[in-house]
C-alpha cells in the first residue's frame, strides 16, 4: 500500500487548522489531513456518502465549535457501529476539568490541551502520533 490512511481534523478556527498541520509536519507525520470546518461537516464526511467513505486512522477533534460541537460529534461516533472504535483525540484550548471528564465519559481516547507555546504543542502532537499512528503501515 502506497498511501497512508488519512487523519480527520475537525476544527473551526483557520489558524488552528494551519498550526495543527504545521505541527504534524514538524513531527514527520505524513498522513494526509482532511479538514472538517465544523461538527456538521465532520459528520457528513464520516457518514454521508453513497458508498461508505474510507475511515480515517485518527480523528483530532476540537470541542468548541458552532452548531454541532465536539462532544456531540464524539457521541455520534461512539454510537455508530462502524465508527465506534475509531481513535478520537480531543484537542482544545480549555483545561477545565469538567471538559476533560466529559470527553473521557463520552469515550475520547486521549485529550490534548492546546498550549500557548507552539513548541509544547508540537511536543504534544509528537507524543500523540507516536501512540496513535505507530501501527500504521509505513510509507514506501
Amino acid at each position, binding site marked *: 500500500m502506497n498511501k497512508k490512511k488519512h487523519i480527520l481534523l475537525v476544527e473551526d*478556527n483557520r*489558524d488552528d487548522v494551519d*498550526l495543527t498541520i504545521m505541527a504534524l509536519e514538524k513531527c514527520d507525520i505524513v498522513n494526509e489531513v482532511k479538514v472538517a470546518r465544523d461538527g456538521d461537516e465532520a459528520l457528513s464526511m464520516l457518514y454521508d456518502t453513497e458508498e461508505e467513505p474510507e475511515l480515517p486512522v485518527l480523528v483530532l477533534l476540537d470541542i468548541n465549535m458552532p452548531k454541532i460541537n465536539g462532544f456531540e460529534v464524539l457521541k455520534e461516533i461512539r454510537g455508530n457501529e462502524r465508527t465506534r472504535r475509531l481513535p478520537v483525540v480531543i484537542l482544545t484550548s*480549555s483545561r*477545565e476539568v469538567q471538559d476533560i471528564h466529559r470527553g473521557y465519559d463520552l469515550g475520547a481516547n486521549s485529550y490534548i490541551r*492546546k*498550549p*500557548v*507555546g507552539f*513548541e509544547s504543542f508540537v511536543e504534544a502532537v509528537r507524543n500523540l502520533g507516536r501512540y496513535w499512528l505507530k501501527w500504521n503501515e509505513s510509507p514506501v
Partner: protein
Amino acid sequence: MESWLLIIRNVHDETILYEQLNQALQEIRKLNASLEQKVKDRTRELEATNRELEAFAYSVSHDLRAPLRGIDGFSLALLEKYGDQLDHKGKDYLNRIRAATRKMGSLIDDILSLSRIATASLQKKPVDITVMSRDIFQSLREKEPERAAEMHISDDVKVTGDPGLLRVAMQNLIDNAWKFSSQQDVIRIDIARERNGSETRIAIRDNGVGFNMKYYNKLFTMFQRLHSGREFPGTGIGLATVQRIVNRHSGRLWAESEVGKGSAFYMVLPDHTETSQE
C-alpha cells in the same frame, strides 16, 4: 361595687395587653419571614454571580488563549521558514513577540487560577503539608537539576484545610522561595511548624535576596512585584492568590524580610480539631 369595677378594669387591661402582645408577635413573625426571603434572594443572586464568574473564567480560558497560540505559532513559522530573509534585529523582534505572548499566556493562567479560588467550594480535610512540600520541592529539583538546593521540612506539619487550595498556596510560596534564592550558591528552604503562644503557624524561610520591608504593603497585592522581571521573572499574582486562599480558610498570612538576608513567610490556619482539644 368598687371592687367589681376594679376587677372588670383589670380584665380589660389584660385583654389590651394580650392583644398588644399578639400584635407584636405577629410583627416579629412577618419580619422573620421577610428576612428569610431576603436571605434566599441574596443567596440566589450570589449563586448567579458565581455562575457568571465561572462562565467568564471558562470563556477566558478558551477564547483568550486561541489568538495567542496563533501569534506564537506563526511567529515561529516566520522565524523558521523565512529566517534567512531577516537580519538579526528582525529575528530579535520576532523572538520578543513570542516572549510577550508566552508571558500573556501565563498571566491568563494565573488570573484564572485566582478566580477559581474565589468560586471553588471549600472542603476541609486533614492535610499533610510535610508530604506536600517534599513533593513540590522534588518537582522543582527535577525542573532545575543543575541547581544546588537543600530543603528542611519538619515531619509534623499537618493542618486542616482544602487540599487542592493549600497545594496551590504551598506551591506559590515554595516557588518564590526557590526563585528568589536562585542567586545563592546553595538554595536553602526551611519549612517548620512553630508554636507561638496559643497559635500554631507554618513558617517558610529561604536564604534568598529578600525584599525591602518599606514596600511590605504591596507584597500581597495583585500584579505588584518588588523585584524586576529581568532579574526574577513573574506575574505578581502568586502571593495575591496565597492571600486569598488563606482568607478563605479564615487564617492569617504575613512575612518578614531584610534585603540580602532571606525571607520568612508565616501562615496560621485555624485548626478546629486542635482548638477543641485545648
